[in-house]
């Protein structure tokens, strides 16, 4: 899509917000952080008093453990392996889901043949496939990528399939009368109409890719965050378990924020009033 002068930089957007709104935003931000802080404080206090520290560790111990892991560099090989698996698994799953969903969405004939199969496989608990994938693809990164991508695939597939099917038939006809060929129809109508669904699928798929990779690593692996968490829990090291989980949490939140930014950029037309003064 063409980027005209409409593409206002974000600084302009935030500058347009009056100071009172800023204060409000800040207040809400504080309110949102508050329950988290209360929870952490309670955890810190309760650990060793209500519950044995061996079971739940405590926030300060986890923070210390995290620092130690990064300072010593012990965690980096695990991060590198897991990161690779996540990125490849996610990208392959999304690409397959978009292509498959689009093809079946556009062709009612293909959909009639393949939809029942995809539906059936959708119901299979993919986690149950983890041991099989280890046998098929080995204990290296391959099996984890396969597991993550298959989980991502189904989510994205169904969203894109539904999105392409929901395109208004009249809009398609109109575009044909305007003189569009199939390629132009895809580019100007089907893809932009399906974009919100693609984005939704992509956002929903982020945590699933993490689940796929971690389950794969816990099942069998030589390196990775899943293995690290598994070993920590096997050696009664709750601080290690929680440190691993915090890292995963950070990853999911960062990826979610990135997807949100991407979504606002791509789908500017859905909520254009936020881009500047244009309301009439």
């Amino acid at each position, binding site marked *: 899509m063409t980027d005209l002068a409409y593409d206002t930089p974000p600084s302009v957007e935030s500058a347009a917000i009056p100071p009172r709104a800023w204060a409000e935003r800040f207040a809400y931000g504080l309110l949102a952080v508050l329950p988290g802080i209360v929870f952490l404080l309670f955890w810190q206090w309760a650990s060793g008093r209500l519950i044995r520290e061996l079971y739940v560790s405590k926030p300060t111990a986890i923070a210390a453990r995290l620092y130690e892991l990064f300072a010593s560099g012990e965690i980096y090989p695990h991060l590198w392996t897991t990161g690779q698996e996540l990125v490849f698994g996610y990208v392959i799953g999304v690409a397959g889901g978009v292509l498959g969903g689009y093809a079946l969405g556009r062709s009612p004939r293909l959909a009639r043949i393949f939809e029942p199969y995809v539906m059936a496989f959708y119901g299979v608990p993919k986690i149950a496939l983890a041991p099989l994938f280890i046998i098929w693809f080995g204990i290296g990164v391959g099996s984890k990528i396969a597991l993550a991508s298959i989980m991502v695939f189904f989510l994205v597939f169904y969203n894109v399939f539904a999105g392409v099917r929901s395109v208004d038939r009249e809009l398609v006809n109109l575009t*044909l*009368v*305007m003189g569009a060929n199939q390629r132009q129809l895809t580019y*100007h109508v089907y893809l932009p109409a399906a*974009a919100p669904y693609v984005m939704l699928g992509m956002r929903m798929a982020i945590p699933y890719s993490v689940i796929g990779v971690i389950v794969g690593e816990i099942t069998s692996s030589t390196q990775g965050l899943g293995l690290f968490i598994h070993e920590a829990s096997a050696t009664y090291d709750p601080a290690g378990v929680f440190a691993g989980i915090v890292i995963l949490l950070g990853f999911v939140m960062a990826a979610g924020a990135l997807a949100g930014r991407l979504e606002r950029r791509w789908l500017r*037309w859905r909520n254009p009033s936020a881009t500047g003064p244009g309301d009439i």
Partner: protein
Amino acid sequence: MSDHVLAFDAIGQDFPAPGQRTNIRVLDGISFEVDRGKFVAVIGPSGCGKSTLLQMAAGLLIPMRGAVHHRSRRVTGINTEVGFVPQQAQLFPWKTLCENVELPLLLRGVAAGERKERVASALEAVGLKGFEQHFPSQLSGGMQKRGSIARTLVYRPDIILMDEPFGALDAQTRMLMQSDLQNLSMEAGATVVFVTHDITEAVLLADQVAVLSQRPSRLLANIQIDLPRPRNMFEPFRNPGFEAAYDAVWTEFRSQIDTGRAH
């Protein structure tokens, strides 16, 4: 066949009825012609298949019986020489107004410089100058409709097909749009087929009104409207001869309205 741009020739069409084995006959042998530069209104009770006729002219639906001829060529597939203005504006929500109006030219391979010029003049003609970078969701219903008309005018189609385009607008906007449409089509010398269920609208806008009956619909009458132009859209009764013209259409139309029914 000399001056006929569009000819409906004994059109018949059945549609499957939900829950029944037999089809419903909707159109039953409809024939009429549209001459070049004429504004033809098609009027009929709801469900009589008025819109179906337009779809056939656009080649989106091939009639079961009979044929549509566009400049003596039988319409057998998508007819890209017509322009279609649907009931809802149907602008592309992901494109700005400017990109929306530009699209038909882009699809037809018009060069960038010319595209820009023609989009600007089309938007100016419908009074939307200054809204080029707005998305459809930022425009009012009337403005969206204008955008939809600009998007059709911009590629100068041989015939403009309009399917109850002003049905969803409020009364004031509607009169304004009717007035603007009259000016635009007079300036462009456009051939227009305009489907409506509003007699006043049909009489005010058209040179010729085709009156369809209830299902299975037939052509009841093809009435010439010879009121001088430009006509006053805001005070219909002030047009000399309006009453007689309205009467001529109403006489045909009244038999199709079930006045005996309790309301």
